[in-house]
């Protein structure tokens, strides 16, 4: 019969319960659309192609574009007659 060997087990880390976390969250590498007139954003969201890529609004003038769809959105904006100011930060 084998004798059970003792193993050193490192103590468990004290993890923060993030479900209850209330601090700020940093969102990086986002593509954002900003308009001067809230009505313009509503118009964009009503567009079948552009609207599908804009899933969330941060305010009535700022919306987030789905990742990897920035080029498509810019192309569609130009196609729709808009002249967006594209800023590569």
């Amino acid at each position, binding site marked *: 019969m084998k004798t059970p060997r003792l193993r050193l087990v490192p103590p468990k880390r004290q993890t923060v319960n993030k*479900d209850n976390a209330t601090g700020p969250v*940093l969102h990086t*590498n986002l593509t954002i659309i900003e308009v001067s007139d809230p009505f313009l954003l509503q118009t964009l969201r009503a567009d079948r192609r552009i609207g*599908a890529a804009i899933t969330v609004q941060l305010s009535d003038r700022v919306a987030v574009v789905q990742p990897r769809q920035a080029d498509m959105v810019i192309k569609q904006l130009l196609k729709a007659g808009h002249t967006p*100011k*594209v800023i590569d930060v």
Partner: protein
Amino acid sequence: MSWGSRRYALPPQLFPLDYAVHLPTYTADVLKQMARVWVGKDASKLNKDACTKAIINGLANPTAVRAVIDGLSPFERAGLGLLKHHGQIARTDEFAVELFMLGYPTPPLERAYSYGFNRSASLLYGGLNTLIKKGLVLGREWDQGYGSTHDAAMGEYYYRPEVFSDHRLLTHMETTPPVTLSLTPFVAGDASGMALQPAEVVLRLVSMVETLRKLGRIDITTKGRLAKPFVAKLTKALGWEEAAGKSANAPFPQVTSFFFQLLQSAGCLQSRPELNSLEVSPQANALFEKPYSAQATAWVNGYRSLTHWTEYTPSALYFEDDDPSAHRKFTVMRSALLMALAALPDATAWYRLSDISDAIYERIGEYFSLLYFQGFYPAYGRKVADEAKQRAEWRKKNRERWQLAEQTWILHAMVGPLYHLGLVALARESNEPTPASIVFRLTPLGRAVLYDPFRPASASTTVDLPTMGPDGPCWIVQPNFDVVVYLDRASAAQLAFVERIAARKPSSGATVLYHLTRETVYAALESGITPDILIERLSRGCDYPLPENIKQTLADWAARREQLSVYRSVDVLEFPTQEERDAALAKRPGSGTAVGERYILLSREPQSKTLAAHAQRVVSYIAPPARCLSVTEDGTFTIAPARTDLLVAGELSAWAETDATSNGHWRITRQSVQKAMSAGWTVESMLENLKHRLQHDLPPLLFVAIRAWAGVRTLPTTVAVATDLILQVTDLEVARAIGGSALLQPYFRGRLGRQTFLVKHESVEEFRSRLAELGLQVGNDVALLGPGWKD
């Protein structure tokens, strides 16, 4: 690190242009021949080190250098003068043929070489090798060569792409004009001809550069050629091919490819950080600011060494286009032609194209051919008279071959690149497009670049070249948005500017017509020109005040662009409450801009990094989306708060409904799916989204239901109700989903096979409505069961 110890440690590099580094790589026999120039016959008694020392010491002694130079033959003097003209270093093949084209008598070459294979290469390098053997010129070595070189002479088994000489030798040399060719000027009553003005050439190159800038990344293949989709895009954007290809006077097919390769060869393109891509280098703009002659010199040097482009490929010539060494024959021909233009008897006279072809043949035709070189091999022991007869026959055939291949190439080179670079003017003796009917002469620019540099300033009369215009008025902007540019007054910077802000229309001559459109102005603003600069520069270059309607429209277009901004790759800090956000922003002003109720759009200022450092969690949107959703079989979604991101709620809202009964839950229903479909979503995009977001597999029943709600597939199910209830499902996938569903299990009494279920009769109606809710159409007929129904 010494040059010798670099082997294996670093990629191979060329040695510096220094004799002290090169000489130790040669054997004693090679060095003895070189040292003979400096110490005479005694060199044969010296060992390798002593020979090296003798040459190095000789070069360091101005008196010894002067003595060596005094003893040089006219050919050697002209050769070193030519190398000085090139700036101490030259490409081997180009320099070898230029030595012949100088026209000075060379040592007999045939006698020095055997009948061996590749005799033509030995003949072509014959003149160069007389300089190399004396050590007046050396082939530039690599730092990782093996052993010592037994024969420094260029040939089949020893080749170096560049040759150079010591600057102390070249200091005392003068650039010698080539011996003039035996040409008779063409005299005709009307010899006006046609030629491009320098400004027209600059305009073409500026157009190319600006178009490349607009297109952005230049895609190339792994072999260094332009990618075909990019060629198509560039050709379409420039629109040169049709006009240049069909030109009756100077047709120039592949003009787009030529000017692109010319820019690359002249060093105006640079590699991008990404693999297999190029971009316009800042050096291009600096070049356009230089005088026309300096620009043309750069283009001529680039043209001489062009690869991946040929003026004309004789049908009998086979070569691998992807192999840069295959283009060496064409660079040799270009060098010969350019040197021939420098050797014209009169820089202002007209000459027949066929005559200059013959003159070039006289100098190199017996050493070089674009095709396979068929040399003359006198039979051993043949009588002198027979050999002369045989040689005459060979010369006749060789000249005929030259006229078919090389003369046609010269025609294409003259009518194509040399004419379109503004170096030669062309005229026709008759309407027949044959080399014999075309006459040419150097333009003032061609003379300044090709002819005069070989002659002292006092010997040649100065050429009146137009000067580059200052940034003064040079165009007229009309109220209909047309811009008429006067080329004789426009600077390269102004041409580049107007190329960026307007679209060029077909035009020729001294003016160019552009048109301002909303798209071109938008592209200019996107390229970095501010609205103020746009109007200011357009006004400054205008002969008359800018029309008011143009000013107003430009301002409107610029203002319209400000209405909608797309920020790529920004960072946003999300706070739990507006109060916390405002407090953080007040504590670190300038770190960002408040957006909405709880967000800060972070700036690129250093203080924003301090603010971002307080984030409890970081979500990157470059990475795949966070798996933060779980879903039950009835379509209820729960978001895990610790893993959520900004987008998930928005995605859910597109194809699910908020569950009013429980906070933070969402539910997917037939109505929500149909609403998403009408908003542009497809069932594939919904399922793909779920696949990336769910923390577990999508329940099969929900998968079936979503597809059914989306109308992708009608699910033919058949139900037969006897005393007890039988559910028969014809679709195996649906049957599996139903069989595995925990939601539907309470309705089943048992299973009769893979696709048949026994349903409790007391819950028939509830089961039927449940199926209908999931999009399963229930019928009344029972299909006949096959023999394998139990399986």
